[in-house]
């Protein structure tokens, strides 16, 4: 009885005409929508296009007015001279190995701390966690000067240890993020393992870590991006060319060859390309990782 009444309420009289009326209007708004988004996308892509295409121009072409996007003569020699002028390969290798160590160690130790905060009742747990949280507010510029002094005492200035050790051993954001996830894991899993006689270490390694995979990957991506593109710390802590990370190499190239625009674009392309390629391949993982890192805060 009641169902037939409901059928009447949803009868085509109200629903259908509106849909029909909206169809043609919708198509137009759809076209406009795509046009707008495309225009935005082009505006975002143009600087990159300029970078890559200019890096293939012979130097004299940059004076052509008005500037053309495409090179008249393709001139890949810019890359050879850029690679000869500055050690991009070493910068790349330095950046990569520093970032990888920091990601692996900091994510793992942050997971350990997160597990302690979420699951173990130890004295001072609450206040200590608040301290970790509060440090998220501290700008790096406040601690960088003392850090420089401390690293100097340790004789770590102008070594990669200055970049690796602090970042590996302190990741408050990671501790906070992963703690949220550990708390979401059903405690019964650990209790069952404890009954089987598993200790804390085994529970952590065999139950917690595998279940933390998604947020750990997200945190890893987030940390990697921060490390890979970091400029402030390397600029202050490193002095010798051979230790330079990729951003420092690009900056150095910029300072030395200030009028070699096409060379600078080749340098910028060399610096930007690896991560852009990775990004295009693993876009979903990266974007979702970034979104997840932000959403839990």
């Amino acid at each position, binding site marked *: 009885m009641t169902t037939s009444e409901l059928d009447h309420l949803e009868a085509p009289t109200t629903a259908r005409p509106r849909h029909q009326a909206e169809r043609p209007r919708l198509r137009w708004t759809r076209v406009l929508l795509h046009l707008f988004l495309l225009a935005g996308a082009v505006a975002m892509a143009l600087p990159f296009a300029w970078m890559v295409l200019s890096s293939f121009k012979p130097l004299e072409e940059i004076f052509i007015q008005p500037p053309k996007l495409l090179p008249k003569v393709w001139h890949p020699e810019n890359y050879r001279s850029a690679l000869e002028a500055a050690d991009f390969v070493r910068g790349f290798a330095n950046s990569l190995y520093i970032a990888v160590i920091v990601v692996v160690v900091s994510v793992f130790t942050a997971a350990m701390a997160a597990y302690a905060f979420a699951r173990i009742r*130890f004295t001072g747990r609450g206040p200590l966690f608040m301290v970790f949280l509060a440090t998220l507010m501290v700008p790096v510029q406040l601690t960088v000067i003392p850090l420089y*002094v*401390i690293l100097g005492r340790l004789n770590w200035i102008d070594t990669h240890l200055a970049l690796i050790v602090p970042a590996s*051993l302190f990741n408050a954001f990671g501790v906070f993020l992963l703690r949220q996830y550990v708390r979401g894991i059903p405690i019964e899993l650990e209790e069952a393992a404890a*009954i*089987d006689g598993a200790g804390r270490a085994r529970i952590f390694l065999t139950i917690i870590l595998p279940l933390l995979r998604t947020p750990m990957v997200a945190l890893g991506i987030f940390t990697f991006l921060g490390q890979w593109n970091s400029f402030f710390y390397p600029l202050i802590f490193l002095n010798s060319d051979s230790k330079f990370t990729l951003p*420092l190499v690009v900056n150095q190239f*910029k300072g030395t060859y200030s009028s070699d625009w096409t060379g600078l674009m080749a340098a910028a392309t060399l610096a930007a390309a690896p991560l852009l390629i990775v990004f295009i391949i693993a876009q979903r993982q990266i974007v979702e990782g970034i979104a997840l890192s932000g959403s839990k805060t």
Partner: protein
Amino acid sequence: MTTTVRPPTRTPPRSGAGKPARSGSKQRWRRDNLAGYLFLAPQLIGLLVFMLGPLVFAVVLSVSHWDGFGARSWAGLSNFSTVLHDPQLRTSAKNTIWYTVLSVPGTMLSAFVVAYLLQKVKRKSFYRTFYFAPVVTSTVAVAAIWLWLFNPEIGPLNALLRQVGLPAPDWLQDARFVIPAFALVGIWQGLGYQIVMMMAGLENVPRTLLEAADIDGASEWQKMRRITIPLLSPTILFLSVTSVIGSFQIFDYIYVFMGANAPASSRTVVYEIYQKAFVEFDFGLGSAIAVFLFAALLALTGLQLLAQKRWVHYTE
């Protein structure tokens, strides 16, 4: 018996047979403390050595005269007084605020528009690739690209402006344009992150609510104003807090664009910290500026969190 607990059944009641918990709560307490601090150890060492120690040291430095090598001497509040009275530092503070005023609302508004429209199309990831690409590019590479785009004579930006008949300023050398130029680059690079965050927030807006509004004949504007924005407000708050903090710490662009000893009109607060501490080796003054920066960030964040009661809507 106990080994067959693998399938997720909740059969075994906590008989306490497997746990030595009853053997003595004191012993358990000691064991938990040991385990807790062992798991915490690496990050705790990091916290003490690389965060809390430096934090205390920074406060000490801010009331000291020190060049990092010789003897440290008591400075009282003279560093702070220098910060307050130095006209150059005042300009840098103004520049930082001006950069924030331009870049934060600029990024958030454009990110909202793009995210809102992206919600409505199918090829989200196609567009996202373009908007997000600058996020994964290092600020140094970004600054190198824009250094040329901004070039007053041979840069394409001014060529474009001249063709349209608009004035073509000397972006990085003209005191009126240099901060807006930084803001433009900041928006371009920061947009993609905010779009992604806002899209994640928009996905949490229940379809049923929007459909119900449709049935009631609500216009697109009304739906956005009354449903989407209130439900997105926690994301908006998060982004405004984090992006204000980020824009107050702007440094990379200025350093790559202008190099060392940048002109007064283009300096920001963090540039001054770098300049005072690591170029002029005045650690005391550098630390005092950093203390001011921290205080400003705390105040700004506090204000935003206080103001949230008026407009942020939490569903839970």
